[in-house]
């Protein structure tokens, strides 16, 4: 081999070796910015994550008068170098609480930061004791959070406590078989705080005979407050090869219906044979995402807005078709105004049918 080739080989090998420490020192610093774990760094990280990813700034400005830049100036004044961790947490929670969004939370060892005014500022319109009275003792458990029975006047009563889990197809078939001779069905989703969108869609698909557009959705495509993707149709398709319910349905709602339960109410409202009764739902019309600030606290925020079939935001809830309030005299008599009104409504509908 010529001397030139030998030199080439040696130089190449040396280059490889030299690359090793280079690759080892390849670090993970963000090319644009990296927030530091100081009170100011954590404050700025949280404010910026929200600024770039939260999806309802324009809506919150219009309805609640929240100006996110003004919020930054106001709360930055409370942050100092020697602020305690707990005090910092309280300030940060207050800052994001301005948005009054149940999907906006800050999680730390101190607490789960939240603003639940969408629920707590309104009448409960719900009594667990009364609900249990209607369910009795021989109700059927159709899955985690799904309970049902047939009421004395031959009306099916289904309580959906949560959409954390979906009711399986086979269990839904069993339930609809069980209620096949009922005159109507009451679905009680009061105080259902949500869960999986797929669980609510799966249940809603049993109440339509055709594909129905029940809303629209999009997601954030960039850090600007108005950087959104195109709108995607949200459609409910009839459950194929499974039992479907075509008799009257009443869905009972209150302010405690949030997130997936809000989505369920939105979908059901768009379907024929379905009537929403009760109070406006609590909202939560933004699909949430999470991130983390430098001190390890986790922030959750709404990132993908959802709209109803008429392109209205559902962040502030779904209004019922028939507005109801729990009557004190009914409660004292051991009756649930909501359930009794729904029974009367279904009876009336059957008579008129």
């Amino acid at each position, binding site marked *: *081999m010529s001397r030139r*080739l*030998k030199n*080439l*080989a040696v130089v*190449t*090998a040396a280059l*490889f*070796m030299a*690359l*090793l*420490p280079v*690759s*080892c*020192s*390849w*670090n*993970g*610093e*963000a*090319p*644009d910015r990296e*927030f530091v*774990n100081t009170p100011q760094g954590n404050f700025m*990280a949280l404010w910026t*994550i929200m600024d770039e*990813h939260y*999806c309802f700034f324009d809506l919150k400005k219009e309805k609640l008068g929240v100006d996110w830049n003004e919020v930054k100036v106001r709360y930055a004044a409370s942050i100092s170098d020697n602020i305690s961790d707990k005090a910092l947490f309280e300030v940060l929670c207050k800052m994001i609480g301005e948005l009054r969004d149940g999907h906006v939370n800050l999680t730390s060892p101190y607490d789960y930061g939240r603003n639940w005014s969408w629920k707590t500022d309104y009448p409960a319109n719900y009594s667990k004791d009364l609900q249990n009275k209607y369910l009795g003792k021989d109700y059927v458990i159709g899955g985690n959070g799904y309970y049902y029975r047939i009421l004395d006047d031959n009306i099916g009563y289904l309580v959906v406590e949560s959409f954390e889990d979906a009711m399986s197809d086979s269990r839904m078939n069993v339930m609809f078989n069980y209620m096949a001779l009922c005159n109507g069905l009451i679905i009680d989703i009061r105080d259902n705080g949500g869960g999986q*969108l*797929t669980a609510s869609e799966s249940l809603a698909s049993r109440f339509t005979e055709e594909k129905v557009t029940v809303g629209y*959705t999009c*997601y*954030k*495509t*960039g*850090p600007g407050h108005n*950087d959104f*993707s195109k709108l*995607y*149709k949200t459609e409910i398709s009839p459950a194929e090869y499974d039992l479907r319910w075509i008799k009257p349905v009443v869905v009972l709602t209150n302010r405690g219906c949030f997130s997936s339960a809000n989505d369920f109410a939105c979908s059901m409202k768009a379907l024929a044979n379905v009537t929403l009764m009760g109070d406006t739902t609590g909202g939560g019309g933004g*699909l*949430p*995402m*999470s*991130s*983390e*600030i*430098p*001190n*390890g606290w*986790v922030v*959750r925020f709404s*990132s*993908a807005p959802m709209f109803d079939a008429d392109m209205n935001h559902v962040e502030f809830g779904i209004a019922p078709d028939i507005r109801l309030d729990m009557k004190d005299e009914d409660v004292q008599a051991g009756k649930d105004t909501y359930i009794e009104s729904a029974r009367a409504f279904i009876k009336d509908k059957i008579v008129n049918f």
Partner: protein
Amino acid sequence: MTDSSRCSRRLSSVLVAVLLASLPLRVTAQRQAWTLPESMETVKVNSFAVGRSQARDTYLSGSTYSGFAFGWENDGWAGYEPHRFFRQGRLHSDLYFSYMENPLGGGLTLEFSGRTYEGFMWHAVKNSKCDFLAGPAVMLELGVLYNQQNSNNPVNMEGYFGGGVCADNTFRFSLFRYDMALQATFFTPLAGFSMAPDYDQPYYYMLAYNGGLGKALHFIHPFNNLAFTQQVALVLPIKDKRLRVGFTCDGLKNNLGGHSRFLLNTMATVGFAMRYQTKKWDR
């Protein structure tokens, strides 16, 4: 960067430098520790890998997670048929599992990844002392990152396929009459396609809506996706076996869909080389 990672990087650099400085490059062609496979021959090394991982994926979290990793690596050299333009093939596959914590130790990220590339090599330098191979390569990488801190979007997929360049160098030398070989391999992708969510695109949307998946596929090039796999290994003959002790470093730094991702694995590897005859597929 933490003090411990800085220290380990310095240590590995010093070790390599000391190793290189101590090598009297005396060729002993008669008793070679390592030779490239001839035509229709394959050399395979299955190695156990253990080391350190770092990851930051801003779709999941703004923090850089670091921790330990272990896995399996398979390296191969194949002598292709004589009539083929590229006479040698260089194969590498690995599977890594990483357990990483955030800087405060309060959050957990798990990563499971696998990658494979195959280089089609031109034998640029061939003599008793050195073999230098270089050529184009194709690669595929798939993996998943799970961030325990993140309740709503805890998982991000990693995956890309593309073409790049690969170079492989083998030095044969002896130290105190003991024949050894030092190998170095470098691969970097130059172009291809990668999967990454479109900014805050939820995975649910990708799968639920027509056209949602299309937004998640990105064309990659070195300006938005810089990646490499680098290996340095020492081959030590033990009787009729060949022990291969090495160091693998693979990194990825990209910015796709408005999110940045940084992944780095630095692994020590140990395995034995096996030489096989390649049989032609008889149709």
